[in-house]
C-alpha cells in the first residue's frame, strides 16, 4: 500500500546497498534528539541497482523526504548523489566523510565489500534486526515505524502482546504492538496497515479477571479498589477492542488457554501463507 506524507511530519529516508544496523542506530540517534515527534523514518537496505534506487528516490520526492544514504559501492553512491541533486532533494551521506577521511588517513582505497561488515550469518542478523525493531516499536514512540512491521499485534491489557512480540522477533519477525484502551484512540497509522498483517488478541473475561485481580493483589491493592478488574469494565474493554479489530479486519486469537509459543506459531503459519 502506498503511504502518503502526513502533514507537518518530516520524512527521513535511509538508503544503502547493504543491510546494516548502523543506519538504524543513526536513525534512532536522530529521532531521539527530536523527541521522536513529527519524524517518520523509512529504511531501504540492499538496494543494488540504479533502478531500485530511482524508484525509492521517486517516492522520496513525492513525500518531500530528506534522503540519508550510505552506499559502499562508489558507483551507486555517485548515482544517488547526482540523482538527488537533479531532483533537488535534500540529501546527505553520513558515511562519505568517514570513507574519504579514512581513505586519506589510511592511504588506501576502500573495499566496497558488504561481506566485511558483519561476520555473522543471515539468520542471526535477521533476528537481531527484528528484535531491535520490536524494541523500538515497544518503546512508546512506536506509531511512526509501524509501517515497517511484519505484523502488528493489537489487544487489550494483559493479553500478552509484548511477550508475544518479543517471541516473534526472536523468530525473525518484526512485531509491533498497540494496546486497545477505550480511553485512548489508536494511532492513525494503524489504519494504514494491511489487514493481513494485523493480529488481534482476546482472552476470556473470567481469565482476565483472575489475572488482573492477581496483579492488583501483587500491587498491594484489594481487587475491589480498581475498576481495572471490574467485570463490566472488562466486558466494555473487550467490546471496544472487538469493534476495533473488526474494523481493522484483523485475524483474532483467543489466548485464554494457550501458551505464548502456541499463538506465535499460529501467527508464523499465517504469515508464511500470506507471503506465498
Amino acid at each position, binding site marked *: 500500500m502506498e503511504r502518503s506524507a502526513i502533514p507537518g511530519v518530516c520524512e527521513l529516508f535511509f538508503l544503502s546497498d547493504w543491510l546494516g*544496523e548502523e543506519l538504524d542506530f543513526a536513525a534512532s540517534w536522530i529521532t*531521539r534528539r527530536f523527541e521522536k515527534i513529527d519524524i517518520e523514518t523509512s529504511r531501504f537496505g540492499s538496494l543494488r541497482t540504479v533502478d531500485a534506487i530511482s524508484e525509492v528516490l521517486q517516492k522520496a520526492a513525492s513525500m518531500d523526504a530528506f534522503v540519508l544514504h550510505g552506499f559502499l559501492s562508489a558507483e551507486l553512491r555517485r548515482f544517488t548523489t547526482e540523482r538527488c541533486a537533479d531532483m533537488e532533494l535534500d540529501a546527505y551521506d553520513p558515511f562519505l566523510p568517514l570513507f574519504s577521511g579514512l581513505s586519506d588517513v589510511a592511504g588506501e582505497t576502500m573495499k566496497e565489500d558488504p561481506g566485511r*561488515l558483519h561476520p555473522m550469518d543471515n539468520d542471526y542478523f535477521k533476528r537481531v534486526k527484528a528484535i531491535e525493531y520490536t524494541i523500538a516499536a515497544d518503546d512508546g514512540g512506536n506509531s511512526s515505524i509501524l509501517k515497517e512491521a511484519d505484523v502488528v499485534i493489537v489487544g487489550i491489557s494483559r493479553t500478552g502482546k509484548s*511477550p508475544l512480540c*518479543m517471541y516473534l522477533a526472536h523468530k525473525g519477525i518484526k512485531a509491533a504492538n498497540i494496546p486497545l484502551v477505550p480511553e485512548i484512540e489508536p494511532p492513525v497509522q494503524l489504519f494504514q496497515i494491511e489487514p493481513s498483517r494485523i493480529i488481534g488478541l482476546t482472552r476470556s473475561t473470567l481469565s482476565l479477571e483472575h*489475572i488482573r485481580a492477581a496483579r492488583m493483589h*501483587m500491587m498491594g491493592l484489594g481487587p475491589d479498589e480498581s475498576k481495572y478488574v471490574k467485570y463490566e469494565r472488562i466486558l466494555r474493554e473487550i467490546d471496544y477492542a472487538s469493534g476495533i479489530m473488526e474494523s481493522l479486519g484483523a485475524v483474532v486469537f483467543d489466548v485464554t488457554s494457550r*501458551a505464548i*509459543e502456541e499463538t506465535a506459531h499460529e501467527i508464523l503459519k499465517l504469515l508464511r501463507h500470506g507471503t506465498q
Partner: protein
Amino acid sequence: MESLNLFIVSDSTGETAEHMALAAISQFDTTFSNIYRYRYVEGEAKIEEILARAALAPSMVVCTLVDKKSRAFLAERCARRDIPFVDLLGPVIDVLEVRLGRAPLQAPGLLRKLDEDYFQRIKAVEFAIQCDDGRSTESLPEADLVILGVSRTGKTPLSMYIANKGFRAANIPLIPEVDPPDILKSIPSSKIVGLIISGERLSQIRHERLRLLGLEPKASAYANRERIERELLAARSYLESLGARIYDVTDRAVEETAQEILDFLRSK
C-alpha cells in the same frame, strides 16, 4: 604505515558514532590501533584536552555532538592541528532543525539515559538470543538472570521480555532425562529463578501444543498427567537445591512474572 588512532567525541554515549565508524573501518585493510571514545563531552576545555592527545599520533576525530557551537569549535581546532575530522550527524540535525522549526534536545540528563538504555537493551537482547533454550552455557556467568523451568512454562518469552528491559537473561530447560549443565552450580542463587506451573494447566497447554502439531495427545508421554507431575516434582526439588527463587506461572501473564523479577533485579 604506522598505526592510527580513532577519537570519538560525543555529548552522549558515543556508541552510534563508534558503530558507524567501525562499519566504515571494516572497508579498509589498515588497522586502527586504538579507538578512544569520549563520552559526555562538554565545554571547550575538554575538547582542547582531547585534541592535545589526538595530536600526539596519527589520528582521526569523529563526533556526534548536537550543540552547533561545540561542533564548529571542534572543526576549527581540528583544522588548526591538521587532524582529519568528521561531523557525522551534525548536518542532519541542522536540516531537521530547519524543517521541524524547533531545536534538538541536548545530551545531558534524559537524552543520555535514553541513549544508554537503547544500547543496553540491544546488548541484553542479543545475549538472550545467544543464551536461549540452554545454548551458550559458557556465557552464563555474564547473565543478570538465569531462568529455569520445564518445557512450556514460558521461559523464552519471559527471557525476551526481561532482556527488552535491559537485563541479560538466559534460559535453560529442565528435561527429566537430561542433567542440567554443571556451570549452574557456580551461579549465585540470587540470579537464578525457577518457573513452576500446576500440573493441570501444563497438561492443558501441552495437549493444545500436540493438537496443533497434529499429534494425538493421549499417545504421548509429553502431555501425560502422571509424567508431568513427576517432572514438576523433580524440577522443584532441583530448583530448591540451587536455592532458586520459584515463581508459579499458573494463571499469570508473562508481564506479571516479569514485573516481579524486574522489581527484584532493580532492588539489588
